[in-house]
């Protein structure tokens, strides 16, 4: 009884996939659509996804296609995030694994909230110098004090005055 309840419970999953790079670029979207359809048929509710894009692999991977082993240095990487009853996930996993164009796939359980920072990541943001900018006619803060730039002569004078005082 408890087991049945667990199996019926909705769970958030994420599938990251790497498709072989020998697929022509124009057929990749169709291939991804097939994968998406297989999820929709099982009643998946999509929470997020990223279209497959060609990536250079960090290391060479091999896949056996027919009798020969093929080596790949690039692949189309994409991901889906979806919600699905736990009992359906085994079938999904099997269908993804058996896909002839699948180089690697990773199925994980995750949280509903967005975890992927992407271009919002603090690493990438830190490359852009963070300086307060004032847009035309808009002040960032009311208390901001604008200090005029001092010329070299003015600075020399003030230093001389300080030395005399001492």
């Amino acid at each position, binding site marked *: 009884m408890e087991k049945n309840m667990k199996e019926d419970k909705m769970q958030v999953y994420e599938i*990251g996939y*790497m498709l072989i790079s020998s697929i022509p670029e124009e057929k990749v979207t169709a291939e991804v659509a097939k994968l998406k359809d297989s999820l929709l048929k099982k009643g998946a509710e999509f929470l997020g996804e990223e279209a497959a894009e060609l*990536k250079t*692999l*960090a*290391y060479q*991977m091999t896949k056996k296609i027919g009798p020969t082993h093929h080596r790949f240095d690039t*692949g189309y*990487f994409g*991901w889906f995030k979806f919600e699905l009853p736990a009992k359906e996930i085994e079938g999904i996993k099997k269908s993804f694994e058996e896909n002839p164009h699948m*180089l*690697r796939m*990773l199925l*994980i359980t*995750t*949280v509903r*909230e967005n*975890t*992927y*920072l*992407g271009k919002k*990541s*603090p*690493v*990438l943001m830190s490359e852009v110098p963070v300086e307060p900018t004032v847009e035309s006619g808009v002040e960032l803060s009311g208390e901001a004090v604008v200090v005029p730039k001092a010329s070299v002569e003015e600075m020399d004078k003030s230093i001389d005055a300080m030395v005399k005082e001492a």
Partner: protein
Amino acid sequence: MNKQCYFMENNIRNIDYKDTEILKKFLNPHARMISRKKSGVCAKSQRQLAVAVKRARFLGLLPYVAR
């Protein structure tokens, strides 16, 4: 002086394997993970980081070894 955890400072509660630019910060030139003694990452985040790095390696987003 104690270092602050990078993930706690930036309010990153779930470390994602797809954020490879962040993960790379915590790998040495040989692509091995940096100890939390050096990086200052808290124990909870270090465990999440280890899982994320291993997932990224499996999918070929990060290398197992380099140089």
